[in-house]
């Protein structure tokens, strides 16, 4: 079976004057459809860089990223934006919702950059908002929500385009433990429904909920 996401011999380095900083060193990983994978590592291990490359927000200095069997190397900025829009749903630590914008509008945002007809937008967004249990807060502005509610809005937004992968970067980092557990449950539910989830975290306890862990250290995959 073709992996949903593959990184093959991915290296990433930054040149700072005469000094070269290697953030990722020859990283090769495969993630199968429906997997729940945690990318774990301490600060500076390269996990954020790997997440950006897997999320097609950044390009590797060497190596390739293959998404659903399609090599993304050499894709134009517009093509990469299209792939991000259709295939990847992002959930960020700081929620990244549009301020003073309603729950509905926040969730509809990815649809506005998609080829989905605008007559479908509201229907799709409402489905996902219901899925995360926020139907009653539909017209609330994002700044009127609690942290947990904000993250559920972010999850609904990540799901709205039916992407192949959900990429979550420290999704419980800004939440108290009880709310964090609720969000974790959301991810587990999504995974049980067949959604591929990649969780990036430095928190070993959180990583344990994933079925597989990819551990990074000093830019290498060590496990």
């Amino acid at each position, binding site marked *: 079976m073709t992996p949903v996401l593959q990184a093959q011999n991915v290296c990433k380095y930054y040149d700072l004057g005469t000094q070269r900083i290697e953030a990722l060193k020859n990283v090769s990983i495969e993630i199968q459809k429906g997997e729940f994978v945690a990318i774990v590592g301490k600060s500076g291990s390269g996990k954020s860089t790997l997440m950006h490359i897997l999320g097609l927000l950044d390009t590797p200095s060497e190596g390739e990223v293959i998404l659903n069997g399609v090599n993304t190397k050499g894709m134009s900025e517009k093509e990469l934006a299209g792939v991000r829009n259709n295939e990847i749903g992002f959930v960020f630590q700081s929620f*990244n919702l549009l301020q003073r914008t309603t729950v509905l509008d926040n969730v509809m*945002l*990815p649809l*506005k*950059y998609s*080829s989905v007809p605008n007559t479908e937008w509201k229907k799709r967004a409402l489905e996902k908002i219901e899925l995360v249990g926020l139907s009653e807060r539909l017209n609330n502005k994002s700044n009127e929500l609690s942290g947990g509610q904000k993250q559920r809005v972010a999850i609904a937004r990540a799901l709205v385009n039916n992407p192949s992968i959900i990429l979550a970067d420290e999704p419980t980092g800004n939440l108290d433990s009880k709310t964090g557990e609720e969000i974790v449950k959301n991810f587990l539910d999504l995974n049980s429904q067949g959604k591929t989830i990649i969780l990036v975290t430095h928190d070993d306890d959180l990583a344990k909920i994933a079925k597989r862990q990819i551990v990074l250290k000093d830019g290498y995959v060590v496990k």
Partner: protein
Amino acid sequence: MIYIPEIVKSALSALSLNKVRTFLTMLGVIIGVFSVVALVAVVQGFQNYITDQFNSLGSNLLLVTPSIGNGNQDPSRAFMGNKLSVKNIDTINLYVGDKIEGATVSVRIAKTIKYKTKEYDSTVVGGNYMSYDVYGLSKYSGDYYTKSDDAREAKVVFLGWKVKEELFGDQDPVGQKIKIDNSTFEVIGVADSKGQTFDDRVYIPDSTLRSEFNIDTVSSIAVKVKESYDIEEVLREVKTALFKDMKADDFSVVTQKDVLSSIDQILGVLSIALAAVAGISLLVGGIGIMNIMLVSVTERTQEIGLRKALGATSANIGIQFMIEAIFISVVGGSIGLGLGYLSTLAVRSFLRATIPWWTVLLALGFSIFVGIVFGTYPAVRAGKKDPIEALRFE
């Protein structure tokens, strides 16, 4: 692909978050467009006023003036070396008398007219008995002065409508005495209203005016050509006739059309010059827009990163910021246009100020232009933001 209505909605939503700032940014464009529109409208009003005055005289009028037609000559000649005289009327009548309806000298002085306790500042216009026809006047009451009044320097006056209204109100002034300086004159008639310039006048035989007020110059000579003759041809003949009295550079003969086109030319240049000066404030407004849009790009860096992560291209982001800049300048331009229109209503009682259609197009076109020009740099900067850096921005 992105729907333009969605971009517009996003732009409006972003601008509405900072209403005061958005309005202050617009203010530069509002003032710029208002200035352009108001100044052009006022100049246009003057143009209308002058055209109306000339048109009321008829199109078949020739004006003989002391050398103002030739731009190469010293303008002071018009005052210092004025060679026009009453004798010129006889010369014109002698040589082209059959082709003209009449000719009159015109001597104008500003005087205060008194009737009992009332006073009114007016222009006293001296001309011969033909001036009634030449100026195309009509009688409200009484009569105009006659050839014999001219000959005997009769102390009679024919009042313009406004002068009658100010001094006599509803009373018929015919037969009443008025005073100009210390001389007393009998009112023999009143003119129908014919526009502000004419209504403010007091007509008097030029012979009387010269003797009473010690004036020996003639301001100009007006000649009314018969409709059946070609005005340009008569102009040449009047010129040739006047060569008997004066040298070529002592006088000019012009048609009304010439005078109007000279005035139009001057006002046209004035209009463009004023619009250009006002246009500078539009540019300042544009710089204000660019400044605020750059601040907005920085403030919304994280939002830009988010939108890119969710699938927006650089072009999507750029267009959104561009639309915000254009929106500010177009709404500002429209408000400026509206205020400009209101200003023309405010002055309409004394000036027929109008906004030409091209000013509306120019103002709105320039507003869009300002939005595009000054919105481009912030839009490009927004579009070029690296999504990772943008997402990390705090």
